[in-house]
């Protein structure tokens, strides 16, 4: 396993473009801390975002894992191209001739993706912990370490999404087209949802079906955190709209994402096995 990770590391780290993208990704993950610096000071109106409760434990786990997940697109580029470049450089052929089995090849990619997800999760955990310790109004141990399921969700969300990227890289073999297809797929999921709700079934049922689509399933793991903010809640109450938004992470949502991950890895391997290079 270490050997497979090392192989992939040599390939990635010696490529300047992916090195820069990976570095920027982790810098961006850290930059969430900069949000704390947002301050408006216009005469009577004083606004300090950090004071609005976004860094309160345990809410910060939810907020940060939701926001930082947006940066995963950076890594998606790296992952799609690390797969597609093997085809365009024909190095996949050379790797296999040199004695890497097809299973090992897929495994080395999947392990790398898992490592990316794991390191990202650790990063978000540490950054949030530090931010929280500085700004949170609550600092009891039990409160700090509650709602940690958002980090678990973050990990599986990234792993599922990256596995999808890997699969697209193998399927389409060209990084630009694969990324294009990723965007197209995201739109298609919405179109399909729209068609289902409009023609086939009720909107509630369509929503339930939609939660099974791969991208929607990964997105659905961490729901938007904004309506939980007290400021937003207050506004809601003022205009007479009560917000009872269900933001929890459920076990079956994990299950769907894990299933998709397995499916994508299996399909990647099956595709590689079937193809002549």
């Amino acid at each position, binding site marked *: 396993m270490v050997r497979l990770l090392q*192989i992939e590391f040599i390939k990635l780290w*010696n*490529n300047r473009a992916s090195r820069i993208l990976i570095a920027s990704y982790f810098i961006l993950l850290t930059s969430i801390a900069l949000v704390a610096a947002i301050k408006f000071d216009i005469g009577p109106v004083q606004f300090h975002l950090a004071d609005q409760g976004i860094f309160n434990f345990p809410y910060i786990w939810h907020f940060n894992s939701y926001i930082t997940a947006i940066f995963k697109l950076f890594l998606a580029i790296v992952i799609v191209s690390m797969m597609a470049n093997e085809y365009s450089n024909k190095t996949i052929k050379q790797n*296999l001739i*040199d*004695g890497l089995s097809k299973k*090992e090849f897929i495994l080395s990619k999947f392990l790398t993706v898992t490592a990316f997800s794991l390191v990202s999760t650790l990063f978000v955990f540490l950054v949030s912990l530090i931010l929280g310790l500085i700004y949170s109004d609550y600092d009891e141990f039990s409160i700090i370490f509650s709602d940690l399921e958002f980090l678990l969700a973050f990990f599986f969300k990234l792993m599922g999404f990256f596995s999808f990227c890997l699969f697209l890289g193998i399927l389409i073999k060209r990084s630009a087209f694969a990324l294009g297809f990723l965007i197209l797929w995201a739109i298609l999921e919405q179109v399909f949802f729209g068609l289902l709700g409009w023609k086939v079934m009720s909107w509630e049922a369509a929503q339930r079906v939609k939660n099974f689509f791969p991208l929607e399933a990964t997105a659905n793991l961490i729901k938007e955190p904004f309506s939980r903010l007290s400021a937003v809640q207050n506004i809601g109450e003022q205009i007479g709209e009560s917000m009872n938004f269900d933001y929890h992470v459920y076990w079956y949502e994990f299950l769907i994402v894990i299933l998709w991950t397995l499916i994508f890895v299996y399909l990647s391997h099956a595709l590689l096995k079937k193809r*002549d290079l």
Partner: protein
Amino acid sequence: MGTILNVDGLTKKFGHLVAVNQLSFTIEKGNVYGILGPNGSGKSTTLGIILNVVNRTSGSFQCFNGTTSTHEALKKVGAIIERPNFYPYMTAVQNLKLVCKIKEVSVDKIAEKLELVGLLDRQHSKFRTYSLGMKQRLAIASALLNDPEILILDEPTNGLDPQGIHQIRQIIKKIAGQGTTILLASHLLDEVEKVCSHVVILRKGKKLYSGPVDEMLASHGFFELKSNDMEQLHAFLEKQAIFGKLTQENGLLTAYLKEELAAEELNQMLFKEGIVLSHLMKRKESLEEQFLTLTQNEN
């Protein structure tokens, strides 16, 4: 000695096209084998199957008597397929380190192998800055990293300039001299003739011949003759049962032998008949001529 590779009834179909048809042959340790055939005769497909990058339709093959799985066996093989494929953004050394990792061998031999192919002074240049000849030599260095039991080369001199071709051939000879088994696919006959002891000849995916180079045709060679009176010479030779086909080209008469005959004997015979030769040469068919004869017979 021992068998390194055993191919049995291998078949590959691309849709309706049969690229490799019921191919069987055996590679023994220590010999240099050539796979010969025109373009599109299934050479690369055959090697692709053996190297685990092309899926076979039917048939089987065994490396090292089938004691290991294919990808484990490949770690004891060195192979170059068509074009050298490396990571363009990595230097020669970085690329070779990666290969070492894949083959699970130590990185100690990188310098030695780069030295062998004459790339040591460019070892820290990126692969994409290399000329085709250098790329091909790097590929050979990479294939040798594990001191393979068999070296598989697919068209190693394709697209190279004469100097590059010469360099690659020198390297191949050097490696063959060290006792490494080599399997060389090529459509360049003189290349195979110069280095191979055994050949497998393919045409349209079918095996026409496999065995030692000099037993390819049961042939006694031929004479190239020239005389002042060509017609008399032709008429006389036609009457002799010992000669088969006679052809005349560029004022040179070529007479193929059906039995063994020494040049001195022929000269004596002709002189007695009053035919004086201005040119007499006994030759064996070159591989090219043998190859053309073989492939034409099948038409």
